[in-house]
Each structure stands twice: as structure tokens, then as C-alpha cells.
């Protein structure tokens, strides 16, 4: 991997060491990725379709455990502990995930959706605590004012962009260390996308965000650091401005300038 200066202030919160993921034995979809992610930054993972971006992201919160044939090797150190040796349920509470399609739970109200992480984990909360968490989480995704009077309505009552913000609130309610986002705006219109981008810039003050995106200008707008992946390998990882202006690697440059995609 070419090395660019990575924007950071302190110790890495997440370290990937030779992380490989394979769907079929002997064929790595992600190949020996090594890098550090720093707290309170937004890292964008870019690359053409099928390059392993989402696969790498989903390795971090052990989503690959759901499928029998997927194998993850290497080390993923989150706050000093190897994720691959932890209980997946614990990992997933530390690394929240937001998906491409907004997916509020359809039978739950907006209120219950925000608290879903607690109910699903069997954590009992008092009424006051619940209300605090709901308000705080919805405030942090700038949804509170829009939904405070329709709390008992189903999540699906909201617009796509609102639903996605509700899903972010649901994830934030559990106060994760890292927020993993898998193309969170690709199913949304430009206005909703813009809102979520603004939101992420606010949220990075409290959280560390890793976002997979197809949209290069999005990466340029919001991320501090960028990772460029190609054919399962991490080609380049560095400060976003530098990567967009002076990429070290020829492939990165070609991708960014639209030679391939």
C-alpha cells in the first residue's frame, strides 16, 4: 500500500491487520488489508463494484458470521480487543451498522425503533431513561422536531430520508464506538443525502465513522481520510484532500478521474 499522511489526532481506535475475507476457499474477496482508523474521523471506502468495500466493512462487525461459507482471517483490533475473538453480539454493540436500504422494523413505532437495540438486547430501561435516549438519539440525527408528535406511528410512515435517519438514531442509541455505514445514501434523493452528509459531519465529534460509498464527490465532501480498494486489496489510504489532488497510485488516479469505475 502506498502511504499518504493520514489525518489523525490520537491513537487508532480500530486497527486492521492483514484482514482477509473469502466466500469460497482459496479466493479472497478482501486480501490482507492492513490499516488504522482514528477516532472522530470519517473514513470513506471507495472503489469499483465488487472490489470488496462492503465485504471489508461487514467483517468489522462480524456480519459474515451469518453465512456459513465466509471466512475472515487476520486481526481486527477495536479499542484494543480483537473483534474476531470476541462474542459477535458484543462486537455489534460496539460497532453499529447502517445499511443501504433504510430498514426500520416495520411492526415497531418510531419510538420503539429507536429503542430496538435495548429491547432486542434484553436491557430494561425506566420510562424516563427511555424518553431521554429517544429524544437524544433523534435530536442527534435532526429528526426530533419532525417526529416528536408522531412517535407512535410506524417507522414506515416516514419518508425514505427520515427512515434512514431513524435507522442512524437506532444505531446511535446504543452509543457505539464506531459507526459503519454501507452506502447509506445511495437509495436516497439528493436533499435527503445532503441532510445525512451534514449529519455525519456533526456526528464525527462523538463517533468514528467508516462509510462505504460509490459517490466520489460524497467522499470528497465529508471524509477526512479515504481508502481506495481494488480487486480486494487496499491500494491507497490517506488524507482525502491529498488523495483527490495527488494520488500516489496510478490506479487510484485512474479511478478518481473516471478511467474505470
Amino acid at each position: 500500500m502506498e502511504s499518504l499522511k493520514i489525518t489523525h489526532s490520537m491513537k487508532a481506535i480500530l486497527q486492521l491487520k492483514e484482514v482477509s475475507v473469502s466466500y469460497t476457499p482459496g479466493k479472497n474477496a478482501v486480501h490482507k488489508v492492513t490499516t488504522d482508523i482514528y477516532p472522530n474521523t470519517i473514513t470513506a471506502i471507495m472503489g469499483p463494484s465488487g472490489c470488496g468495500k462492503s465485504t471489508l466493512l461487514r467483517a468489522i462487525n462480524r456480519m459474515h458470521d451469518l453465512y456459513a461459507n465466509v471466512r475472515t482471517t487476520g486481526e481486527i483490533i477495536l479499542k484494543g480487543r480483537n473483534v474476531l475473538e470476541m462474542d459477535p453480539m458484543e462486537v455489534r454493540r460496539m460497532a453499529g451498522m447502517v445499511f443501504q436500504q433504510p430498514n426500520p422494523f416495520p411492526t415497531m413505532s418510531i419510538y420503539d425503533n429507536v429503542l430496538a437495540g435495548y429491547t432486542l438486547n434484553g436491557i430494561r430501561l425506566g420510562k424516563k431513561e427511555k424518553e431521554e435516549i429517544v429524544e437524544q438519539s433523534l435530536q442527534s440525527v435532526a429528526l426530533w422536531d419532525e417526529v416528536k408528535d408522531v412517535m407512535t406511528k410506524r417507522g414506515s410512515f416516514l419518508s425514505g430520508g427520515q427512515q434512514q435517519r431513524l435507522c442512524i438514531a437506532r444505531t446511535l442509541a446504543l452509543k457505539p464506538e464506531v459507526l459503519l455505514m454501507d452506502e447509506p445514501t445511495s437509495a436516497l434523493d439528493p436533499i435527503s443525502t445532503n441532510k445525512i452528509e451534514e449529519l455525519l459531519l456533526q456526528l464525527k465529534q462523538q463517533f468514528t465513522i467508516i462509510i462505504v460509498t460509490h459517490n466520489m464527490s460524497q467522499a470528497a465532501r465529508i471524509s477526512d481520510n479515504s481508502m481506495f480498494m481494488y480487486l480486494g486489496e487496499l491500494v491507497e489510504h490517506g488524507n482525502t484532500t491529498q488523495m483527490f489532488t495527488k494520488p500516489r497510485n496510478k490506479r487510484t488516479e485512474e479511478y478518481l478521474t473516471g478511467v474505470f469505475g
Partner: protein
Amino acid sequence: MNHSSSIVQRKRKDKTIRHLVGFFSLLAMIPLFFILWDVISKGYKNFNLRLFTEVTPSSMDALLAISNGDPIPGGILNGITGTILIVGLAILFSVPLGLFIGIYLADNQGKRFAGLVSYLTDLLQGMPSIVIGIIAYAWVVKPLGSYSALAGSVALTIMMLPMIVRSTEETLKMLPLSYKEAGLALGSSYTNVVFRILIPSGFGGIFTGILLAISRVMGETAPLMLTALGASVVHWKMTEPASAIPLLIWDFYNDPNLVDLIWSSSLLLLIVIFLLNWIAKIVARKWKV
């Protein structure tokens, strides 16, 4: 052939086929209409409060009443309570079992054992009900040494299982994978994802399947003959023989003095089944996710 004439020909052919399709659907409706007409017109005379509050009269009493020109002195309360008991027990057994198998199949697509279970479920669905009755006889009646409501409910459980399994499986398969992933990504256990997200989300489809299974076995007669046998009294003991509405209809058929009760009993059975199907439709529509 000239181009425009071929279009005319094609249009004519289309029209004929369209009419034929409509005609045959109408034709198929005719027997259905006559069944309803027959059951209603012959059944309404004895469709009274007595049908629900009194047990089946003896053949002698019925004969006396008929010769005096009175209505038949009795109802089918023993059949109604028997059906409630037997079907109720069958629901109790088949719903949890069917749900679990359905969840398993939806979650393990492509696995060998799941394939086998799926195949056996299909096989069970096609099993003649009399064979299921014989099996329940061998499993329950023989070891317990007596015909019983329990044995009847075991037979009906076996009949309901494949329907509940399939509807659960199909409903869960239709839910977006991302519900499950989102639940697990919040750190939830598999159990909580299944019972707090997937089953509630698929409730409409699963519940509809259960209702249709109930309405299907409600009219079953053959398996009950070999298991529940029948009873002329009202009771709620599952270890004793019990009657059921379809069993009574069979009894009435064999007794010339009670033959009039066939129609009112059939009418009741039809009404209940119609209601169940109607509720199933409403539930399926209302709970669409």
C-alpha cells in the same frame, strides 16, 4: 396471406379465447352455487337455537317428533364442543411445531437436512387423511387403550403441520434480509430477532396460514372416525371419545330419522369455514408489511 386479414383473424381468435375463459369460470361456479343453495335451503329449517344448545337426540325421539310433525328435538352441541376440543388441541400442538419447522426451513435454505424436511413436508401434505387417521390410531388409540379427543387432535395436528410450516416458511422468506441483519447488527441474539422482529413482521402471512389450516381440518371426517370416534354427551376430557360436527353429519346420514339434521350441521360448518377464510383475508390485507 394478407397482413391485415391476419390481424383480423388474430383478434377474432383472442376474442373467442377470452369468452371461453370467462365461460368456463362461470361453469365452474355453477356447482358451487348449487351446493350453497342446497345447504342453505335445506338447512335453515333446523338452524335454530336448539342446534347450539342441545345434544343429538336419540333416533326414537326423532322418529316420534317426525311422526307428530314436530321439528327434531335436539341439536349438535356435542359435536360443536367436540370440534372445539379436538381442533383446539390440534392448534395447540401444530402451531408451535409448525412455526419452529417453518423458521428452520426459511433459515437453512440449501442445506441438506432442510431439503429433506421440506420434502417430507410436501409428502405429508399429500398424505390421504384416512392414512393419517390410521397412524394416529396406532400411535395414540392403541397405547391408551381407548378412542379419544386427544387421538383425533393428533391426527388433525399431522394434517395442519405442513400447511403451517409452508406458510411460515414462505412468509419469512419474503421478508427483506435486511430486517434480520439490522436486528443482529444491533447486537441482538438470534432468538430475539426471530421472535421480536421476523415473526411480528410476518404475522399476517403466518396467521393467515394458521387460519386456513384450521378451516381445512375443521371438516375432516375420516381421520376422526378412527380416533375420536364420537360421543353423544358434552364433555371436555381429552382422554375420552368425543364427537365433532363432521362426525355427526356422517351419523345423521346413517340414521333415516335424523337425516334432516345433516343440512343444518353442514350449514353451520360452512358458515364457520367461510368466516375463517374471510378473517384470513382481512388479516392478510391489514398486516401486509
